């Protein structure tokens, strides 16, 4: 049990290289199954840690048995557990979804991505965090490349912006090392308030560098450019991972660094609140005018990430609860939306929203799940999106910030407009297309299971919100003890 944190990170890494070895031999076609096995084992290990974490325990692990300030330490606490759970689920479903379509090196990259994500959320060492972040980013840059030629330029754009972000982050880490002489987060939590008293300007500089870098990585307002490109042109399972997991990494690092580590006297709440607000408004407005289905979903992601930031920026326990719950819910909902969009595009061969009209060949289940996902993300009561939006709204009202609450509601309606436009097109009766109705390429049942799992999750966590709130209780307790 005590070795679980490192096994969760190292097992996929080990299998990744084993798969790249296997892809050179004749057993090429088993790569996907092996990847599935390793992600499954890692995910089960994460789940096994669950009871202990949710009981309020923290599981620490030091690599090579070097104690805290010397060696690299891993720590699984409520927040990292929540994120690791999301990543495990999404990666597992993405691997299942891509079993038929991809082979070889693709799975090895997905596994490296998974190892990087878990590494980022578990590590307690700032530089190690940077390294894992870079590992996951590089594999994400490569995975964005799909058979579509335009995805090459999306990948390059993502690479330029992403490397700039990590370079800025690294510069910040360097300045912190110059100030404090350590990378260990626990030591830094003690050191930084002391340094703050003598050199506030340097700490502010570090904070600004980190904020810009995290803003790029989680696709916030002025730095969102890569999000629609990469999300819309990547293969479907990768879009799911990018939107559900990779965007969340930025938010995780933000919470970890600014809310549990640097508790300086400067209040970032106002900045975060308005940043989130602008991002939400901007993402929502741009999603309205999109013609491409997946691109619209990408702008909707910017909108939702803004909403998550608003909850954090409110600075209350309730707001944080809503934010973390929305982070979890958004991963489930966007996962199901991207999966169903992928299936719709796969079966019709059409990406534009207008062209989907009256298309009788879309199978029923993707249409239905797109409708459910849309309802969930708009915030219609029996589904999980409602609960988290409601929590954030209530937190805003409690803070007396009625304008924010009103804007969240208004942008719920805007989301309704752009999602229901697609739904309307999907469900409109086929009239003229009867003649050109071609044999739809059948979708293997295994892809339906991915969609079903995510939809089931949305329904369960909407009907039983106490279960979801139980999951995030420890994470919130970390920030608001």
């Amino acid at each position, binding site marked *: 049990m005590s070795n679980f944190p490192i096994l969760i990170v190292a097992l996929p890494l*080990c299998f990744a*290289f084993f798969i790249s070895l296997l892809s*050179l031999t004749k057993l090429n076609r088993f790569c996907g199954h092996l990847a599935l096995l390793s992600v499954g084992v890692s995910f089960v290990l994460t789940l096994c840690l669950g009871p202990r974490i949710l009981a309020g325990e923290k599981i620490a692990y030091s*690599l*090579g048995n070097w104690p805290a300030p010397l060696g690299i330490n891993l720590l699984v606490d409520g927040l990292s557990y929540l994120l690791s759970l999301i990543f495990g689920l999404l990666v597992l479903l993405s691997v299942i979804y891509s079993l038929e379509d991809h082979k070889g090196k693709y799975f090895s990259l997905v596994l490296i991505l998974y190892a990087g994500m878990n590494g980022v959320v578990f590590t307690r060492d700032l530089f190690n965090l940077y390294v894992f972040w870079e590992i996951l980013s590089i594999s994400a840059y490569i995975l964005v490349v799909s058979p579509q030629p335009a995805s090459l330029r999306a990948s390059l754009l993502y690479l330029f912006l992403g490397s700039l972000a990590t370079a800025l982050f690294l510069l910040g880490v360097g300045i912190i090392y110059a100030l404090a002489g350590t990378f260990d987060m626990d030591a830094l939590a003690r050191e930084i308030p002391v340094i703050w008293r003598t050199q506030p300007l340097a700490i502010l500089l570090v904070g600004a560098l980190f904020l810009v870098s995290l803003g790029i990585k989680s696709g916030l307002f002025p730095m969102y450019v890569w999000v629609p490109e990469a999300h819309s042109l990547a293969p479907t399972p990768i879009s799911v991972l990018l939107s559900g997991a990779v965007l969340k990494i930025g938010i995780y690092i933000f919470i970890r660094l600014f809310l549990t580590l640097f508790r300086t006297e400067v209040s970032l709440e106002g900045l975060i609140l308005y940043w989130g607000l602008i991002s939400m408004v901007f993402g929502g407005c741009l999603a309205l005018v999109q013609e491409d289905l997946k691109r619209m979903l990408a702008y909707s992601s910017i909108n939702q990430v803004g909403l998550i930031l608003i909850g954090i920026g409110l600075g209350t326990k309730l707001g944080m609860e809503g934010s973390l719950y929305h982070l979890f819910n958004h991963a489930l909902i966007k996962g199901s939306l991207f999966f169903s969009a992928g299936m719709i595009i796969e079966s019709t061969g059409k990406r534009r929203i207008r062209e989907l009209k009256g298309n009788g060949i879309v199978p029923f289940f993707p249409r239905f799940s797109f409708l459910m996902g849309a309802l969930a993300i708009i915030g219609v009561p029996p589904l999980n999106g409602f609960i988290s939006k409601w929590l954030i709204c209530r937190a805003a009202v409690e803070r007396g910030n009625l304008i924010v609450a009103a804007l969240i509601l208004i942008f719920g309606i805007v989301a309704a407009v752009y999602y229901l436009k697609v739904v309307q097109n999907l469900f409109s009766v086929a009239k003229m297309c009867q003649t050109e109705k071609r044999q739809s390429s059948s979708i293997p049942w295994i892809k339906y299971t991915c969609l079903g799992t995510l939809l089931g999750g949305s329904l369960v966590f909407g009907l039983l919100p106490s279960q979801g709130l139980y999951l995030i209780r420890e994470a919130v307790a970390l920030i608001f003890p």
Partner: protein
Amino acid sequence: MRRQETKIVRNVARKLFPVLVLFAFYLIIYGHISPGGGFQGGVVLGSSLILLYLSEGPERVEKKFKNSQLAILEAIGVLTFVGIGFLGIILGKHFLGNFLPIGRVGMVPSAGLVLLLNLFIGTKVGAGISLIFYALMKFDRRAQGE
């Protein structure tokens, strides 16, 4: 077809190649007690192959050092590294925990696992660097062929 390099370049490169490989292994093996280490040695190892590649032309080098073999070598390097880490867990220590005798300071087989790990890192980096170079060169060749 690439222009053949002059005889001088080819001879010098051929003479330089074994020296570079030796130097690479020196850097790797003495990495734990002097400047150097797995990555540095690996890069020298990779650049020795690159030198050969540049002077002899791709066709002749690929006969000796096949791309697939290099890829296998690379994967094996990492796998053994992680495997040694897991061995630490199995032997009752932590991941990458030292289970070899530490030895005397300043001697070559000392510092426990570090020498072993450096060796595998060196293999991986050497193979990786030359593979990256091969891949980029192939782009070039294909572009010229068009």
